[in-house]
């Protein structure tokens, strides 16, 4: 007698394991009173420069630390260490994004109670990081003026999962004839209502607004 195939419901999320670890991290961050922001963008959009400036400016008043993900090298960690903040590199090998378990491992030995802000710089990639929760309170997506105004339309998923967008390298906007209105409209199309900040990490322009935004969120979380 031939058997009949039948459908059995299982309803298992493929990223369940990551979601479980991310939830556990979020609870630890909450219990320790540390505010966690992750940074996502394409490679070369200025995450490290933005983070270095952020750490340097926060450091006199807050206890800050950063985890930085890359496929290879610890160049970014070396750059960020100039801010005198605690920094750890996560080298992912061939993996194009950070996962919650990597963050958990990288945090080993750190006392989270000793921190006010923790930043997690993801691997430069606008695709895969969108699917992986790393337990952050705030997901920051960066877009540099040299990349073009239509990036949000090309990578809507990452923009849609972000909480705030930061336009970087504003000091170059004029030279590359960046259309700020178009960029604003595109961000608004894929994530209506998301705040958009304009900065130049190099010149320090717009950093006050960003830090005020961050401090406000960390107080009202």
């Amino acid at each position: 007698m031939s058997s009949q195939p039948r459908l059995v419901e299982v309803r298992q999320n493929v990223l369940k394991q990551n979601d479980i670890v991310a939830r556990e991290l979020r609870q630890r961050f909450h219990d320790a009173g540390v505010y966690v922001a992750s940074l996502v963008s394409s490679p070369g959009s200025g995450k490290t420069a933005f983070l270095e400036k952020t750490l340097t400016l926060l450091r006199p008043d807050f206890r800050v630390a950063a985890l930085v993900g890359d496929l290879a090298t610890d160049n970014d960690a070396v750059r960020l260490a100039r801010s005198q903040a605690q920094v750890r590199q996560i080298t992912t090998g061939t993996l194009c994004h950070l996962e919650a378990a990597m963050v958990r491992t990288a945090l080993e030995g750190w006392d989270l109670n000793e921190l006010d802000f923790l930043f997690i710089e993801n691997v430069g990639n606008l695709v895969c990081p969108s699917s992986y929760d790393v337990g952050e309170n705030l997901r920051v997506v960066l877009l540099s003026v040299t990349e073009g105004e239509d990036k949000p339309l090309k990578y809507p998923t990452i923009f849609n999962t972000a909480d705030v967008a930061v336009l970087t390298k504003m000091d170059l906007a004029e030279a590359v004839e960046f259309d700020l209105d178009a960029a604003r409209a595109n961000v608004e199309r894929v994530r209506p209502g998301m705040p958009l900040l304009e900065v130049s990490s190099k010149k320090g322009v717009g950093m006050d607004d960003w830090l005020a935004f961050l401090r406000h969120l960390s107080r009202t979380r």
Partner: protein
Amino acid sequence: MAEEEADHRGGLRVNAVHLKLGALAGVVKEALLSSYELACEGTGLQGSRLVIDEIPVVVNCPRCLGPRTVDSIQWFVCPECKGPVSEVIQGRELQVFALEIEE
């Protein structure tokens, strides 16, 4: 994961894995289909099919006060009132929904 489930149910033969894939899941259907066979090689799922059920993005429109399906993930606008919408209630799924098994 599907293999674990099959083992859990007494090592039944799995003919197909049904996957729900949201438009905002960040995964491309074609990439999943092309890598599936390779991933199954040498496992209990070898020879099985991957059936992908694509899930559109549904948002809660604050003006129409109801769920609305967004036509394009490049434009989060309510298809009825044309206003911006941001509360996603469906479309991020990446879920093994069901297994087609043979007894």
